[in-house]
Protein backbone atom coordinates (compact mmCIF):
# COMPACT_ATOMS: atom_id res chain seq x y z
CA UNK A 1 0.00 0.00 0.00
CA UNK A 2 0.97 3.62 -0.41
CA UNK A 3 0.92 3.88 3.35
CA UNK A 4 4.23 2.05 3.42
CA UNK A 5 6.04 4.98 1.88
CA UNK A 6 7.83 6.59 4.78
CA UNK A 7 9.88 9.02 2.73
CA UNK A 8 10.19 12.35 4.48
CA UNK A 9 8.15 11.14 7.41
CA UNK A 10 8.97 12.07 10.97
CA UNK A 11 8.76 9.53 13.78
CA UNK A 12 8.42 11.50 17.01
CA UNK A 13 10.59 10.37 19.88
CA UNK A 14 12.57 11.67 22.79
CA UNK A 15 16.00 10.16 22.32
CA UNK A 16 19.30 12.06 22.26
CA UNK A 17 19.24 11.89 18.48
CA UNK A 18 15.79 13.44 18.37
CA UNK A 19 16.85 16.20 20.73
CA UNK A 20 20.01 17.15 18.86
CA UNK A 21 19.94 20.62 17.37
CA UNK A 22 18.67 20.37 13.77
CA UNK A 23 21.77 22.29 12.61
CA UNK A 24 23.97 19.65 14.18
CA UNK A 25 22.07 16.92 12.41
CA UNK A 26 22.19 18.71 9.08
CA UNK A 27 25.94 19.28 9.35
CA UNK A 28 26.49 15.72 10.51
CA UNK A 29 24.59 14.39 7.52
CA UNK A 30 26.97 16.36 5.30
CA UNK A 31 29.95 15.04 7.26
CA UNK A 32 28.50 11.56 6.91
CA UNK A 33 28.07 11.91 3.16
CA UNK A 34 31.59 13.29 2.71
CA UNK A 35 32.94 10.38 4.77
CA UNK A 36 30.90 7.91 2.75
CA UNK A 37 32.19 9.22 -0.57
CA UNK A 38 35.76 9.37 0.67
CA UNK A 39 35.66 5.80 1.92
CA UNK A 40 37.68 3.49 -0.25
CA UNK A 41 38.33 0.34 1.77
CA UNK A 42 35.96 -2.14 3.39
CA UNK A 43 37.24 -0.99 6.76
CA UNK A 44 36.26 2.63 6.17
CA UNK A 45 32.88 1.55 4.83
CA UNK A 46 32.50 -0.46 8.00
CA UNK A 47 33.30 2.62 10.02
CA UNK A 48 30.62 4.68 8.29
CA UNK A 49 28.16 1.83 8.67
CA UNK A 50 28.99 1.57 12.35
CA UNK A 51 28.29 5.29 12.78
CA UNK A 52 24.89 4.78 11.13
CA UNK A 53 24.06 1.66 13.13
CA UNK A 54 24.87 3.37 16.41
CA UNK A 55 22.71 6.34 15.41
CA UNK A 56 19.81 4.06 14.50
CA UNK A 57 20.26 2.16 17.74
CA UNK A 58 20.21 5.26 19.92
CA UNK A 59 17.26 6.78 18.06
CA UNK A 60 15.14 3.64 18.63
CA UNK A 61 13.97 3.77 15.00
CA UNK A 62 13.23 0.20 14.00
CA UNK A 63 15.50 -1.05 11.19
CA UNK A 64 12.36 -2.52 9.60
CA UNK A 65 11.06 1.00 9.06
CA UNK A 66 14.21 2.05 7.23
CA UNK A 67 14.11 -1.04 5.04
CA UNK A 68 10.49 -0.39 4.21
CA UNK A 69 11.33 3.17 3.28
CA UNK A 70 13.90 1.89 0.79
CA UNK A 71 11.38 -0.27 -1.02
CA UNK A 72 10.53 2.30 -3.69
CA UNK A 73 14.25 2.72 -4.42
CA UNK A 74 15.04 -0.97 -4.82
CA UNK A 75 15.06 -0.68 -8.62
CA UNK A 76 17.63 2.11 -8.58
CA UNK A 77 19.82 0.16 -6.18
CA UNK A 78 19.52 -3.03 -8.23
CA UNK A 79 20.26 -1.19 -11.48
CA UNK A 80 23.39 0.38 -10.05
CA UNK A 81 24.58 -3.00 -8.86
CA UNK A 82 23.96 -4.67 -12.21
CA UNK A 83 25.56 -1.91 -14.27
CA UNK A 84 28.66 -1.99 -12.11
CA UNK A 85 28.76 -5.74 -12.21
CA UNK A 86 28.82 -5.99 -16.00
CA UNK A 87 30.55 -2.84 -17.13
CA UNK A 88 33.75 -2.92 -15.14
CA UNK A 89 36.89 -4.03 -16.91
CA UNK A 90 39.37 -6.31 -15.23
CA UNK A 91 40.11 -9.95 -14.63
CA UNK A 92 37.32 -11.94 -16.27
CA UNK A 93 35.64 -14.44 -14.01
CA UNK A 94 32.80 -15.75 -16.17
CA UNK A 95 31.71 -14.85 -19.66
CA UNK A 96 28.29 -15.62 -21.09
CA UNK A 97 27.66 -14.25 -24.60
CA UNK A 98 28.37 -10.51 -24.34
CA UNK A 99 28.06 -10.46 -20.58
CA UNK A 100 31.27 -10.53 -18.63
CA UNK A 101 31.66 -10.66 -14.91
CA UNK A 102 34.98 -9.49 -13.57
CA UNK A 103 36.43 -9.61 -10.11
CA UNK A 104 36.64 -5.82 -10.17
CA UNK A 105 33.01 -5.71 -11.28
CA UNK A 106 31.85 -7.67 -8.25
CA UNK A 107 33.88 -5.51 -5.92
CA UNK A 108 32.71 -2.26 -7.42
CA UNK A 109 29.08 -3.43 -7.48
CA UNK A 110 29.28 -4.32 -3.80
CA UNK A 111 30.82 -0.95 -2.97
CA UNK A 112 28.31 1.02 -5.02
CA UNK A 113 25.31 -0.79 -3.60
CA UNK A 114 26.47 -0.39 -0.02
CA UNK A 115 27.28 3.23 -0.72
CA UNK A 116 23.76 3.94 -1.99
CA UNK A 117 22.12 2.02 0.83
CA UNK A 118 24.20 3.84 3.43
CA UNK A 119 23.49 7.17 1.74
CA UNK A 120 19.74 6.66 1.71
CA UNK A 121 19.57 5.21 5.22
CA UNK A 122 21.66 8.09 6.58
CA UNK A 123 19.50 10.80 5.06
CA UNK A 124 16.36 8.93 6.17
CA UNK A 125 17.63 9.15 9.73
CA UNK A 126 17.64 12.93 9.43
CA UNK A 127 13.98 13.22 8.45
CA UNK A 128 12.88 10.34 10.68
CA UNK A 129 14.24 12.02 13.80
CA UNK A 130 13.75 15.70 12.99
CA UNK A 131 10.36 17.37 12.70
CA UNK A 132 9.86 19.32 9.47
CA UNK A 133 9.65 22.57 11.41
CA UNK A 134 12.93 21.96 13.21
CA UNK A 135 14.51 20.90 9.96
CA UNK A 136 13.59 24.06 8.10
CA UNK A 137 14.53 26.20 11.09
CA UNK A 138 17.94 24.61 11.05
CA UNK A 139 18.31 24.97 7.30
CA UNK A 140 17.27 28.58 7.32
CA UNK A 141 19.72 29.30 10.09
CA UNK A 142 22.60 27.54 8.38
CA UNK A 143 21.93 29.22 5.06
CA UNK A 144 21.38 32.58 6.79
CA UNK A 145 24.60 34.15 5.49
CA UNK A 146 23.30 33.75 1.93
CA UNK A 147 20.64 36.36 2.68
CA UNK A 148 23.39 38.93 2.31
CA UNK A 149 23.68 38.04 -1.36
CA UNK A 150 19.92 38.31 -1.84
CA UNK A 151 19.10 34.60 -1.80
CA UNK A 152 15.50 34.25 -0.52
CA UNK A 153 16.55 31.79 2.16
CA UNK A 154 13.48 32.19 4.32
CA UNK A 155 11.09 31.68 1.43
CA UNK A 156 12.98 28.60 0.26
CA UNK A 157 12.97 27.15 3.75
CA UNK A 158 9.27 27.83 4.11
CA UNK A 159 8.56 26.15 0.78
CA UNK A 160 10.52 23.12 1.84
CA UNK A 161 8.76 23.01 5.16
CA UNK A 162 5.35 23.09 3.52
CA UNK A 163 6.34 20.45 0.98
CA UNK A 164 7.63 18.12 3.71
CA UNK A 165 4.57 18.74 5.81
CA UNK A 166 2.23 17.81 2.98
CA UNK A 167 3.88 14.64 1.71
CA UNK A 168 2.15 12.40 4.27
CA UNK A 169 -1.10 14.30 3.84
CA UNK A 170 -1.09 13.80 0.10
CA UNK A 171 -0.23 10.13 0.49
CA UNK A 172 -3.11 9.70 2.88
CA UNK A 173 -5.41 11.55 0.52
CA UNK A 174 -4.31 9.39 -2.42
CA UNK A 175 -5.05 6.31 -0.36
CA UNK A 176 -8.50 7.58 0.48
CA UNK A 177 -9.37 8.49 -3.11
CA UNK A 178 -8.06 5.15 -4.35
CA UNK A 179 -10.25 3.33 -1.84
CA UNK A 180 -13.27 5.36 -2.86
CA UNK A 181 -12.76 4.59 -6.56
CA UNK A 182 -12.05 0.93 -5.81
CA UNK A 183 -15.39 0.86 -4.01
CA UNK A 184 -16.87 1.79 -7.38
CA UNK A 185 -15.05 -1.08 -9.02
CA UNK A 186 -12.02 0.78 -10.37
CA UNK A 187 -9.24 -1.62 -11.23
CA UNK A 188 -5.66 -0.37 -10.99
CA UNK A 189 -3.92 -3.69 -11.23
CA UNK A 190 -4.87 -5.32 -14.49
CA UNK A 191 -4.82 -4.35 -18.15
CA UNK A 192 -2.07 -3.06 -20.42
CA UNK A 193 -0.05 0.10 -19.94
CA UNK A 194 -2.63 2.27 -21.68
CA UNK A 195 -5.47 0.93 -19.56
CA UNK A 196 -3.46 1.44 -16.40
CA UNK A 197 -2.57 5.01 -17.33
CA UNK A 198 -6.24 5.69 -17.98
CA UNK A 199 -7.15 4.16 -14.63
CA UNK A 200 -5.12 6.91 -12.96
CA UNK A 201 -7.47 9.68 -14.10
CA UNK A 202 -10.07 8.99 -11.39
CA UNK A 203 -7.30 9.38 -8.81
CA UNK A 204 -5.34 12.28 -10.23
CA UNK A 205 -8.24 14.61 -10.91
CA UNK A 206 -9.61 14.59 -7.34
CA UNK A 207 -6.07 14.65 -5.99
CA UNK A 208 -5.11 17.78 -7.91
CA UNK A 209 -8.35 19.48 -7.01
CA UNK A 210 -7.81 18.77 -3.35
CA UNK A 211 -4.15 19.83 -3.50
CA UNK A 212 -5.14 23.16 -5.01
CA UNK A 213 -7.88 23.57 -2.42
CA UNK A 214 -5.41 22.86 0.36
CA UNK A 215 -2.89 25.30 -1.07
CA UNK A 216 -5.60 27.93 -1.22
CA UNK A 217 -6.75 27.31 2.33
CA UNK A 218 -3.18 27.36 3.59
CA UNK A 219 -2.48 30.65 1.84
CA UNK A 220 -5.56 32.19 3.40
CA UNK A 221 -4.71 30.84 6.84
CA UNK A 222 -1.18 32.21 6.57
CA UNK A 223 -2.46 35.59 5.49
CA UNK A 224 -4.95 35.62 8.36
CA UNK A 225 -1.98 35.31 10.68
CA UNK A 226 -0.32 38.23 8.93
CA UNK A 227 2.45 36.20 7.39
CA UNK A 228 4.62 38.46 5.25
CA UNK A 229 7.73 36.46 4.68
CA UNK A 230 10.85 36.44 6.78
CA UNK A 231 11.38 40.15 7.33
CA UNK A 232 11.28 41.17 10.96
CA UNK A 233 10.07 37.77 12.03
CA UNK A 234 11.16 36.57 15.45
CA UNK A 235 11.04 33.02 16.74
CA UNK A 236 9.39 31.38 19.64
CA UNK A 237 11.88 28.52 19.65
CA UNK A 238 15.43 29.82 19.46
CA UNK A 239 17.97 27.31 18.28
CA UNK A 240 20.71 26.73 20.86
CA UNK A 241 23.57 24.29 20.84
CA UNK A 242 23.84 22.09 23.92
CA UNK A 243 26.66 19.89 25.18
CA UNK A 244 25.17 16.88 23.40
CA UNK A 245 25.68 18.72 20.11
CA UNK A 246 29.36 19.16 20.86
CA UNK A 247 29.64 15.45 21.58
CA UNK A 248 27.86 14.61 18.36
CA UNK A 249 30.13 16.91 16.36
CA UNK A 250 33.14 15.34 18.04
CA UNK A 251 32.07 11.80 17.16
CA UNK A 252 31.14 12.75 13.60
CA UNK A 253 34.44 14.53 12.99
CA UNK A 254 36.38 11.66 14.53
CA UNK A 255 34.73 9.32 12.04
CA UNK A 256 35.56 11.63 9.15
CA UNK A 257 39.18 11.96 10.19
CA UNK A 258 39.48 8.21 10.59
CA UNK A 259 38.08 7.63 7.11
CA UNK A 260 40.62 10.09 5.72
CA UNK A 261 43.44 8.43 7.61
CA UNK A 262 42.41 5.01 6.30
CA UNK A 263 42.34 6.45 2.80
CA UNK A 264 45.81 7.86 3.23
CA UNK A 265 47.14 4.53 4.43
CA UNK A 266 45.69 2.75 1.47
CA UNK A 267 47.12 5.17 -1.05
CA UNK A 268 50.61 4.87 0.40
Amino acid at each position, binding site marked *: MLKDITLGQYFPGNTVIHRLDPRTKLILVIVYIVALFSAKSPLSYGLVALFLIVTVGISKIQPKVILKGMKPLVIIIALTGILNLFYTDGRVLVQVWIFRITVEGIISALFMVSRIILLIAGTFMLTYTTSPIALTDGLENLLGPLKKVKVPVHELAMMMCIALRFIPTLIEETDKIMSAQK*ARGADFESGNLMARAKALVPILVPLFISAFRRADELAIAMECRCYQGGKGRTRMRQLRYASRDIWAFGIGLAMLVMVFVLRGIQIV
Partner: protein
Amino acid sequence: MEETTLTPILQTKNLTHTYGEGTPFQRDAIHNLDFSVERGAFIGIIGHTGSGKSTLIQHLNGLLKPTSGQVLFNGEDIWQNKEFTRQIRFKVGLVFQYPEYQLFEETVYKDISFGPKNMGLSPEEIDRRVRQAAGFVGLDASVLEVSPFDLSGGQKRRVAIAGVIAMEPDVLILDEPTAGLDPVGRESVLENIRNYQKAQNATIIMVSHSMEEIASNVDKLAVLNHGKVAMYATPKEVFTHAEELIAMGLAVPQVTNVLLRLKQLGVTIDTSAFTVEQAKEVLLRKKEELRHA
Protein backbone atom coordinates in the same frame (compact mmCIF):
# COMPACT_ATOMS: atom_id res chain seq x y z
CA MET B 1 -33.31 -20.80 -0.35
CA GLU B 2 -34.63 -20.84 3.17
CA GLU B 3 -31.13 -20.92 4.47
CA THR B 4 -30.12 -17.65 2.80
CA THR B 5 -32.90 -15.84 4.60
CA LEU B 6 -31.51 -17.14 7.87
CA THR B 7 -27.81 -16.53 7.29
CA PRO B 8 -26.92 -12.90 7.87
CA ILE B 9 -26.12 -11.04 4.66
CA LEU B 10 -22.92 -9.73 6.23
CA GLN B 11 -21.02 -11.12 9.15
CA THR B 12 -17.61 -10.62 10.69
CA LYS B 13 -15.88 -13.26 12.78
CA ASN B 14 -13.06 -12.37 15.14
CA LEU B 15 -12.16 -9.47 12.90
CA THR B 16 -8.94 -7.70 13.82
CA HIS B 17 -7.23 -4.94 11.89
CA THR B 18 -3.82 -3.55 12.78
CA TYR B 19 -2.66 -0.35 11.12
CA GLY B 20 1.01 0.38 10.50
CA GLU B 21 2.28 -3.05 11.43
CA GLY B 22 5.97 -2.90 12.27
CA THR B 23 6.16 0.88 12.62
CA PRO B 24 6.11 2.89 15.84
CA PHE B 25 2.53 3.82 14.93
CA GLN B 26 1.26 0.25 15.09
CA ARG B 27 -2.17 -0.11 16.68
CA ASP B 28 -5.28 -2.27 16.54
CA ALA B 29 -8.14 -0.20 15.16
CA ILE B 30 -10.55 -3.07 15.70
CA HIS B 31 -9.94 -6.15 17.75
CA ASN B 32 -11.70 -9.55 17.64
CA LEU B 33 -14.87 -7.92 16.47
CA ASP B 34 -18.03 -9.99 15.85
CA PHE B 35 -20.86 -8.30 14.04
CA SER B 36 -23.69 -9.47 11.83
CA VAL B 37 -26.28 -7.79 9.67
CA GLU B 38 -29.64 -9.27 8.73
CA ARG B 39 -30.95 -8.95 5.18
CA GLY B 40 -33.12 -5.90 4.63
CA ALA B 41 -32.31 -4.20 7.92
CA PHE B 42 -31.40 -0.55 8.44
CA ILE B 43 -28.42 -0.67 10.80
CA GLY B 44 -26.83 2.30 12.51
CA ILE B 45 -23.26 2.44 13.80
CA ILE B 46 -22.20 4.97 16.40
CA GLY B 47 -19.02 5.36 18.39
CA HIS B 48 -16.67 8.12 19.43
CA THR B 49 -13.94 9.41 17.12
CA GLY B 50 -11.35 6.73 16.47
CA SER B 51 -13.49 3.85 17.74
CA GLY B 52 -13.00 1.99 14.47
CA LYS B 53 -16.22 2.67 12.57
CA SER B 54 -14.62 3.56 9.25
CA THR B 55 -12.17 0.69 9.61
CA LEU B 56 -15.00 -1.78 10.19
CA ILE B 57 -17.08 -0.72 7.21
CA GLN B 58 -14.12 -0.81 4.84
CA HIS B 59 -13.79 -4.48 5.69
CA LEU B 60 -17.38 -5.18 4.76
CA ASN B 61 -16.78 -4.62 1.04
CA GLY B 62 -13.24 -5.96 0.95
CA LEU B 63 -11.37 -2.66 0.72
CA LEU B 64 -9.33 -3.53 3.78
CA LYS B 65 -8.00 -7.01 4.29
CA PRO B 66 -8.40 -8.35 7.82
CA THR B 67 -5.18 -8.76 9.77
CA SER B 68 -6.94 -11.78 11.22
CA GLY B 69 -10.51 -13.05 11.24
CA GLN B 70 -13.11 -13.30 8.52
CA VAL B 71 -15.76 -11.31 6.71
CA LEU B 72 -18.64 -13.36 5.33
CA PHE B 73 -21.15 -12.31 2.67
CA ASN B 74 -24.15 -14.66 2.65
CA GLY B 75 -21.99 -17.03 4.66
CA GLU B 76 -19.12 -17.03 2.15
CA ASP B 77 -15.67 -15.66 2.91
CA ILE B 78 -15.24 -12.56 0.73
CA TRP B 79 -11.50 -13.16 0.43
CA GLN B 80 -11.80 -16.68 -1.00
CA ASN B 81 -10.57 -15.49 -4.41
CA LYS B 82 -9.74 -12.26 -6.23
CA GLU B 83 -12.72 -12.28 -8.56
CA PHE B 84 -15.15 -12.85 -5.70
CA THR B 85 -13.68 -9.93 -3.76
CA ARG B 86 -14.17 -7.71 -6.79
CA GLN B 87 -17.77 -8.82 -7.16
CA ILE B 88 -18.35 -8.00 -3.49
CA ARG B 89 -17.42 -4.38 -4.20
CA PHE B 90 -20.46 -4.21 -6.46
CA LYS B 91 -22.78 -6.06 -4.09
CA VAL B 92 -21.77 -4.03 -1.07
CA GLY B 93 -21.73 -0.35 -2.03
CA LEU B 94 -19.69 1.93 0.17
CA VAL B 95 -20.16 5.69 0.28
CA PHE B 96 -17.18 7.29 1.99
CA GLN B 97 -17.16 10.24 4.32
CA TYR B 98 -17.26 13.46 2.24
CA PRO B 99 -17.72 11.45 -0.96
CA GLU B 100 -17.90 14.62 -3.06
CA TYR B 101 -14.10 14.78 -3.05
CA GLN B 102 -13.91 11.70 -5.26
CA LEU B 103 -15.80 13.18 -8.25
CA PHE B 104 -13.64 13.40 -11.34
CA GLU B 105 -15.64 13.25 -14.57
CA GLU B 106 -16.59 16.09 -16.89
CA THR B 107 -20.30 15.60 -16.39
CA VAL B 108 -22.51 14.33 -13.61
CA TYR B 109 -23.84 11.64 -15.94
CA LYS B 110 -20.37 10.27 -16.67
CA ASP B 111 -19.42 10.30 -13.03
CA ILE B 112 -22.48 8.36 -11.92
CA SER B 113 -21.89 5.83 -14.72
CA PHE B 114 -18.32 5.07 -13.57
CA GLY B 115 -19.41 2.23 -11.26
CA PRO B 116 -21.87 0.57 -13.67
CA LYS B 117 -19.27 0.83 -16.46
CA ASN B 118 -16.73 -0.99 -14.30
CA MET B 119 -19.33 -3.72 -13.83
CA GLY B 120 -19.25 -4.27 -17.58
CA LEU B 121 -22.96 -3.60 -18.16
CA SER B 122 -24.53 -2.81 -21.52
CA PRO B 123 -24.91 0.89 -22.49
CA GLU B 124 -28.71 0.68 -22.19
CA GLU B 125 -28.50 -0.82 -18.72
CA ILE B 126 -25.95 1.80 -17.69
CA ASP B 127 -28.23 4.55 -18.94
CA ARG B 128 -31.20 3.13 -17.05
CA ARG B 129 -29.23 2.83 -13.84
CA VAL B 130 -27.74 6.31 -14.05
CA ARG B 131 -31.16 7.89 -14.55
CA GLN B 132 -32.73 5.80 -11.83
CA ALA B 133 -29.92 6.55 -9.35
CA ALA B 134 -30.17 10.26 -10.13
CA GLY B 135 -33.89 9.96 -9.43
CA PHE B 136 -33.31 8.28 -6.06
CA VAL B 137 -31.14 11.13 -4.85
CA GLY B 138 -33.43 13.79 -6.26
CA LEU B 139 -31.15 15.08 -9.00
CA ASP B 140 -32.94 16.78 -11.85
CA ALA B 141 -32.38 15.34 -15.34
CA SER B 142 -31.04 18.73 -16.43
CA VAL B 143 -28.19 18.45 -13.92
CA LEU B 144 -26.87 15.30 -15.58
CA GLU B 145 -25.01 17.16 -18.32
CA VAL B 146 -23.48 19.75 -15.97
CA SER B 147 -19.92 19.49 -14.64
CA PRO B 148 -20.02 18.10 -11.09
CA PHE B 149 -17.59 20.81 -10.02
CA ASP B 150 -20.14 23.52 -10.77
CA LEU B 151 -22.61 22.13 -8.25
CA SER B 152 -23.17 23.11 -4.63
CA GLY B 153 -21.70 20.98 -1.84
CA GLY B 154 -25.01 19.29 -1.10
CA GLN B 155 -25.63 18.49 -4.76
CA LYS B 156 -22.11 17.09 -5.16
CA ARG B 157 -22.81 14.81 -2.22
CA ARG B 158 -25.94 13.54 -3.97
CA VAL B 159 -24.01 12.89 -7.17
CA ALA B 160 -21.45 10.89 -5.23
CA ILE B 161 -24.12 8.85 -3.47
CA ALA B 162 -25.86 8.26 -6.80
CA GLY B 163 -22.54 6.97 -8.15
CA VAL B 164 -22.68 4.13 -5.64
CA ILE B 165 -26.43 3.56 -5.82
CA ALA B 166 -26.14 3.14 -9.61
CA MET B 167 -24.33 -0.14 -9.00
CA GLU B 168 -27.56 -1.30 -7.30
CA PRO B 169 -25.77 -2.91 -4.36
CA ASP B 170 -27.61 -5.32 -2.08
CA VAL B 171 -26.02 -3.60 0.88
CA LEU B 172 -25.49 0.15 0.94
CA ILE B 173 -23.02 1.41 3.52
CA LEU B 174 -22.69 5.12 4.21
CA ASP B 175 -20.04 6.79 6.38
CA GLU B 176 -21.59 9.90 7.91
CA PRO B 177 -23.61 10.73 4.81
CA THR B 178 -25.06 13.90 6.32
CA ALA B 179 -21.89 15.42 7.78
CA GLY B 180 -21.59 19.09 6.91
CA LEU B 181 -25.07 19.48 5.42
CA ASP B 182 -27.80 21.87 6.55
CA PRO B 183 -30.90 20.42 8.31
CA VAL B 184 -33.01 20.36 5.15
CA GLY B 185 -30.20 18.76 3.14
CA ARG B 186 -29.68 16.21 5.89
CA GLU B 187 -33.31 15.13 6.03
CA SER B 188 -33.52 14.85 2.27
CA VAL B 189 -30.37 12.71 2.00
CA LEU B 190 -31.83 10.41 4.65
CA GLU B 191 -35.05 10.23 2.70
CA ASN B 192 -33.09 9.30 -0.45
CA ILE B 193 -31.49 6.47 1.45
CA ARG B 194 -34.82 5.20 2.76
CA ASN B 195 -36.28 5.38 -0.76
CA TYR B 196 -33.45 3.29 -2.08
CA GLN B 197 -33.92 0.74 0.67
CA LYS B 198 -37.63 0.41 -0.05
CA ALA B 199 -37.29 0.22 -3.82
CA GLN B 200 -34.50 -2.35 -3.87
CA ASN B 201 -35.18 -4.24 -0.64
CA ALA B 202 -31.64 -3.26 0.21
CA THR B 203 -29.80 -3.54 3.48
CA ILE B 204 -28.49 -0.22 4.81
CA ILE B 205 -25.64 0.41 7.21
CA MET B 206 -25.15 4.00 8.25
CA VAL B 207 -22.41 5.50 10.40
CA SER B 208 -23.51 8.67 12.11
CA HIS B 209 -22.63 11.01 14.93
CA SER B 210 -26.15 12.34 15.27
CA MET B 211 -28.22 10.47 17.83
CA GLU B 212 -31.41 12.03 16.51
CA GLU B 213 -30.70 10.82 13.01
CA ILE B 214 -29.91 7.32 14.24
CA ALA B 215 -32.88 7.20 16.58
CA SER B 216 -35.45 8.04 13.93
CA ASN B 217 -34.09 5.87 11.10
CA VAL B 218 -32.50 2.63 12.14
CA ASP B 219 -33.93 -0.74 13.17
CA LYS B 220 -30.85 -1.77 15.06
CA LEU B 221 -27.93 0.10 16.45
CA ALA B 222 -24.32 -1.00 16.99
CA VAL B 223 -22.24 0.96 19.48
CA LEU B 224 -18.51 0.72 18.85
CA ASN B 225 -16.07 1.39 21.65
CA HIS B 226 -12.30 0.93 21.39
CA GLY B 227 -12.55 -1.35 18.39
CA LYS B 228 -15.25 -3.62 19.81
CA VAL B 229 -19.03 -3.81 19.58
CA ALA B 230 -20.12 -2.65 23.02
CA MET B 231 -23.87 -2.85 22.39
CA TYR B 232 -25.99 -4.11 19.52
CA ALA B 233 -29.73 -3.71 19.92
CA THR B 234 -32.71 -1.58 18.99
CA PRO B 235 -32.25 2.17 19.56
CA LYS B 236 -34.86 2.00 22.31
CA GLU B 237 -32.83 -0.55 24.22
CA VAL B 238 -29.51 1.15 23.59
CA PHE B 239 -30.72 4.53 24.77
CA THR B 240 -31.86 3.08 28.10
CA HIS B 241 -28.15 2.68 28.87
CA ALA B 242 -27.64 6.43 28.95
CA GLU B 243 -24.87 6.40 31.57
CA GLU B 244 -22.82 3.80 29.72
CA LEU B 245 -23.17 5.76 26.49
CA ILE B 246 -22.02 8.92 28.19
CA ALA B 247 -19.07 7.05 29.68
CA MET B 248 -18.10 6.06 26.14
CA GLY B 249 -18.04 9.68 25.10
CA LEU B 250 -21.42 9.48 23.39
CA ALA B 251 -24.73 11.10 24.11
CA VAL B 252 -28.39 10.15 24.04
CA PRO B 253 -30.91 12.05 21.89
CA GLN B 254 -31.81 15.49 23.21
CA VAL B 255 -35.39 14.54 24.08
CA THR B 256 -34.22 11.49 26.02
CA ASN B 257 -31.95 13.83 27.91
CA VAL B 258 -34.90 16.05 28.80
CA LEU B 259 -36.84 13.06 30.11
CA LEU B 260 -33.84 11.79 32.08
CA ARG B 261 -33.43 15.21 33.67
CA LEU B 262 -37.12 15.26 34.59
CA LYS B 263 -36.66 11.90 36.26
CA GLN B 264 -33.65 13.24 38.12
CA LEU B 265 -35.83 16.07 39.38
CA GLY B 266 -38.20 13.52 40.89
CA VAL B 267 -40.89 13.12 38.23
CA THR B 268 -41.82 9.47 37.72
CA ILE B 269 -41.73 9.25 33.96
CA ASP B 270 -40.92 6.72 31.23
CA THR B 271 -37.51 7.70 29.83
CA SER B 272 -37.32 5.30 26.92
CA ALA B 273 -38.66 7.75 24.32
CA PHE B 274 -36.01 8.88 21.84
CA THR B 275 -37.85 10.83 19.17
CA VAL B 276 -39.76 14.06 19.61
CA GLU B 277 -43.05 12.33 18.70
CA GLN B 278 -42.58 9.61 21.32
CA ALA B 279 -41.59 12.15 23.94
CA LYS B 280 -44.67 14.18 23.13
CA GLU B 281 -46.83 11.10 23.76
CA VAL B 282 -45.12 10.40 27.05
CA LEU B 283 -45.43 13.98 28.25
CA LEU B 284 -49.08 14.26 27.24
CA ARG B 285 -49.85 11.03 29.06
CA LYS B 286 -48.05 12.32 32.12
CA LYS B 287 -50.04 15.55 31.94
CA GLU B 288 -53.31 13.60 31.83
CA GLU B 289 -52.15 11.52 34.76
CA LEU B 290 -51.30 14.58 36.81
CA ARG B 291 -54.63 16.21 36.06
CA HIS B 292 -56.53 13.16 37.24
CA ALA B 293 -54.43 12.78 40.33
